[in-house]
């Protein structure tokens, strides 16, 4: 009965040339959206000319249009920090801002952090201190940690925890993340 049920319920999902859909759902890629407009973005020092629906966030433009998959989509609502990038040198949630709003800005992602083949000090410290487990939150953590080096933050670990609180880690690698950020700060 159970197996039969699965077979029957699966049947409509099979491609059937005899029964084409009555109405075709409009397929819209971001570039093909009816109100798409030209958008120029500067990412990691490179200029990109795109055609985007104004609804495209910086995060979606990076991942879906520029194939820069390092920046991660976690909550998509500014609550987890996985999408953190630098805009004009300041860390921001790329999920909560539209690409079209940043045509005059310099965007830096995790892919643009290393310079001349050298890891950024925060990247190197994450390797040294084992600052990650599954790695999904890591690009956002590192972008926050890198920005933190230039922000007014107290010297102690609690101050670092407070200023890293916008980046959640479900694996719970927090102790090693704090150690990595503190190490990078001492060397900066």
């Amino acid at each position, binding site marked *: 009965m159970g197996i039969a049920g699965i077979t029957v319920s699966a049947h409509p999902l099979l491609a059937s040339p005899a029964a084409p859909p009555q109405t075709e759902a409009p397929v819209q890629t971001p570039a093909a959206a009816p*109100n798409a407009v030209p958008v120029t973005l500067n990412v990691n020092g490179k200029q990109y000319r795109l055609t985007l629906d104004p*609804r495209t966030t910086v995060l979606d433009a990076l991942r879906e249009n520029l194939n820069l998959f390092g920046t991660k989509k976690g909550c998509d609502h500014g609550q987890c920090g996985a999408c953190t990038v630098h805009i004009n040198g*300041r860390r*921001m949630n790329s999920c*909560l*801002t*539209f690409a079209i709003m940043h045509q005059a800005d310099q965007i830096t992602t995790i892919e643009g952090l290393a310079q001349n083949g050298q890891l950024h000090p925060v990247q190197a410290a994450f390797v040294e201190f084992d600052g990650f487990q599954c790695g999904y939150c890591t690009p956002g953590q590192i972008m926050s940690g890198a920005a933190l080096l230039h922000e007014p933050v107290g010297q102690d670990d609690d101050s670092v925890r407070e*200023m890293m*609180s*916008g980046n959640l880690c479900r694996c719970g690698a927090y102790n090693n993340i704090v150690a990595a950020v503190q190490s990078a700060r001492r060397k900066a």
Partner: protein
Amino acid sequence: MNAFQYKDAANAEAAISASGAQPGGKFVAGGTTLIDLMKLEVETPRVLVDINRLPLTQLETTSDGGMRIDAMVRNSDLANQELIKQRYPVLSQALLSGASPQLRNMATTGGNLLQRTRCYYFRDVAYAACNKRDPGSGCAAMDGYNRIHAILGTSDHCIATNPSDMAVAMMALQAVVHTQGAKGNRDIPLNQFYRLPGNTPHIETVLEPNELITYVTLPALPEGTRSYYLKLRDRASYEFALSSAAVVLQVSGGNIQNAQIALGGVGTIPWRSREAEQALQGKAANEETFKNAAQAAMANARPLHDNAFKVKLAQLCLRRALRVATQQS
């Protein structure tokens, strides 16, 4: 998310005109509230006017010794500005207690004043009943899970809390909001800026459609003024207040003078407590006075089935804030 037309504006006049050209216009600054709510389809603007290029980014002293904060000054810049930290520590503390560093880098002074509630029923369009989102549809929170909801300023139509920390500090500092609109400029004291929900909870401020906040002024504070912001919440960081208190006062000969008290996390608007202020005026700065003030602040509280704890929490919050503020050297 609904489709919208994007417009960029170079100055306030252009922004106001672009927003008013057709119905459904909204200004976008930091976007941390608006874009979040657009994704949830709670906000559905047809025109989005980007005000990030407006020349409203200055923070300066005024001739009377106060401060002028332009609407586009980011929360992180305002919190870390030396004069703000020295003269208005309550404002710096409130800002740094809110959101995350990333969000504070985006969020603006004007936008923070217009933050919308975190009521889960307002934010989730799957719930049909929300008078704030859909006037006349009812209130799912009233008989729902209302642990985070307001106990002051509520009505039978809405019990949603205002989520801002910054606005609570500015309420205690007696800030003035300056606006520009098609009909001209206005100076609106912050304590007249927010509207109680009453039977129109969808109207949250006295702003007219397409009226733009251009700057905020803080009056000068008398020499020796002490101020402090205390925020209590479910997590130590990156969480909205269950209860908060902004305290601005002077102590002279052991007695409290000119106390200005505002509460967060408990009101439908950033809550100025005249009752607490009257209970403190001229009284000795001691535990008995603080307790009386805290009780006075909650005298009109209307707790619901899940948020009655806030009555006690708000009292303890205010008492501790007063203790810290009066013991400062």
